[in-house]
């Protein structure tokens, strides 16, 4: 069966150029970057080249402001807990949003259980935060604001620049989870004015199990893991040279392709949105129509449930995702959709198509062709329609 992958926000295929780099560092240049000998030096150079490539993509002042981690989840945990522990003497209040990824929300929950106080700022119906609501949440003991750059479910982009400017007035540090944004839209840490930023390799055609954390010079950070002298002791463990070099290559690729990727995906995205909206009755687009990732289509299909849509799509060879609790084994529908004010039924009926650089117009057209019949069949079974 020809398969159409439209779940790029869950993970992307590794680009062949990236895989070639990973292979090189698995099979030939396999040294430990801490070793004194030839193999070690080659590995060390690869690490530092990758650091420059990441720094370059996000406009960091210096490659030394980047730490490599095992992924977005670790970057988020390190940023939030790392700052919280390092700044605990200055205050115990942290501001985040209601629609963050679980890595951020649950890191905050863990801190709350240890005595920190967390304020979760809400969002509007399109998933966007009001920077002034962040200002209102700031207290004398606020040490950190963590707000995502682009939401993973509905693709809404947040006004991080404004939020960072406000934070600066109060001398509060800002972290942004840019896992979904980097590689999709142009991201510049200097323009954003953030102090910390999380990235993940596998959301941008790089390998899984590797991520990065941007840490602006002089930002206080306590490591969560102890060991050797790797990554300035802020993230010890033998460096995943192959993965890191792969992530570097993915950043290089993103830099080369960004403008065209963006343009290309936007066109596909809007075609898919228009197709779904015109072919299927009682469908709503979730998220912001304009402040939105170029690859995200998230719709609520009234009267039916997300997992059953996904299963039906999968039988047609189409891979998508959903904000229904049934897909995650949790008991609640997507906290993000609920925070945007959707009812439980409607939240359960969400489907997310996230496009990638390998998707073609035919793929989009096939989804538009297949989805209506699926919806019709499931609606016929539903007591809600």
């Amino acid at each position: 069966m020809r398969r159409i992958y439209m779940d790029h926000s869950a993970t992307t295929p590794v680009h062949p150029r990236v895989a070639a780099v990973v292979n090189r560092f698995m099979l030939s240049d396999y040294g430990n970057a801490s070793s004194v000998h030839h193999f070690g030096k080659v590995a060390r150079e690869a690490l530092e080249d990758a650091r420059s490539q990441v720094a370059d993509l996000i406009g960091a002042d210096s490659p030394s402001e980047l730490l490599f981690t095992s992924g977005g989840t670790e970057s988020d945990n390190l940023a939030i807990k790392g700052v919280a522990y390092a700044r605990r003497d200055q205050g115990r209040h942290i501001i985040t949003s209601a629609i963050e990824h679980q890595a951020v929300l649950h890191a905050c929950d863990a801190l709350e259980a240890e005595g920190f106080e967390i304020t979760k700022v809400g969002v509007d119906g399109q998933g966007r935060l009001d920077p002034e609501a962040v200002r209102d949440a700031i207290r004398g003991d606020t040490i950190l604001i963590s707000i995502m750059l682009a939401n993973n479910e509905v693709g809404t982009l947040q006004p991080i620049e404004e939020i960072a400017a406000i934070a600066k007035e109060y001398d509060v540090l800002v972290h942004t989870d840019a896992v979904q944004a980097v590689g999709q839209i142009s991201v510049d840490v200097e323009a954003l004015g953030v102090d910390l930023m999380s990235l993940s390799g596998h959301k941008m055609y790089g390998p899984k199990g590797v991520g990065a954390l941007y840490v602006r010079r002089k930002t206080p950070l306590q490591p969560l893991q102890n060991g050797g002298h790797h990554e300035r002791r802020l993230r010890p463990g033998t460096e995943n040279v192959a993965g890191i070099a792969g992530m570097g290559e993915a950043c290089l690729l993103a830099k080369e392709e960004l403008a065209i990727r963006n343009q290309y995906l936007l066109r596909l995205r809007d075609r898919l949105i228009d197709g779904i909206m015109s072919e299927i009755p009682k469908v709503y687009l979730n998220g912001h129509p304009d402040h939105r990732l170029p690859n995200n289509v998230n719709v609520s299909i009234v009267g039916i449930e997300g997992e059953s849509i996904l299963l039906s799509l999968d039988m047609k060879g189409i891979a998508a995702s959903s904000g229904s609790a049934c897909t995650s084994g949790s008991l609640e529908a997507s906290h993000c959709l609920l925070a945007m004010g959707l009812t439980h039924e409607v939240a359960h009926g969400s489907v997310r198509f996230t496009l990638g650089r390998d998707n073609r117009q035919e793929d989009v057209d096939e989804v538009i062709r297949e989805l209506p019949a699926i919806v019709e069949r499931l609606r016929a079974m539903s007591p809600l329609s």
Partner: protein
Amino acid sequence: MYTEAVMEHFTNPKNVGEIENPDGEGQVGNPTCGDIMKMYIKVEDDQVVDAKFKTFGCGAAIATSSVATEMVKGKTIEEARNITNRQVAEALGGLPGNKMHCSNLAADALHKAIDNYEERKKAREEGTA
């Protein structure tokens, strides 16, 4: 994740729809957890002669609804009462762990439909008494 039996019942569910003038009907679930099942039964001489369902929910919810309506047909009311959610899951070759409690409600819906049947019967008997 799902067994072949689940996928078969999800793909070709049996007994989808409503029964006009059912002898009993029952609904379980709630929007929060994402599964709502509605069951209709037709009863003759204390025997379930037909059953239909309408379900809003995941693959497991649809498959359990389908197989449960199959299981109940031909059973006496007493036998139908003894059908458990566990039996329904077993008839499908098992369900993923996280689906066992949240989407495996078909037997409950059935029991509600039977309750409803018996209430109506009682009401009718009292009405005619």
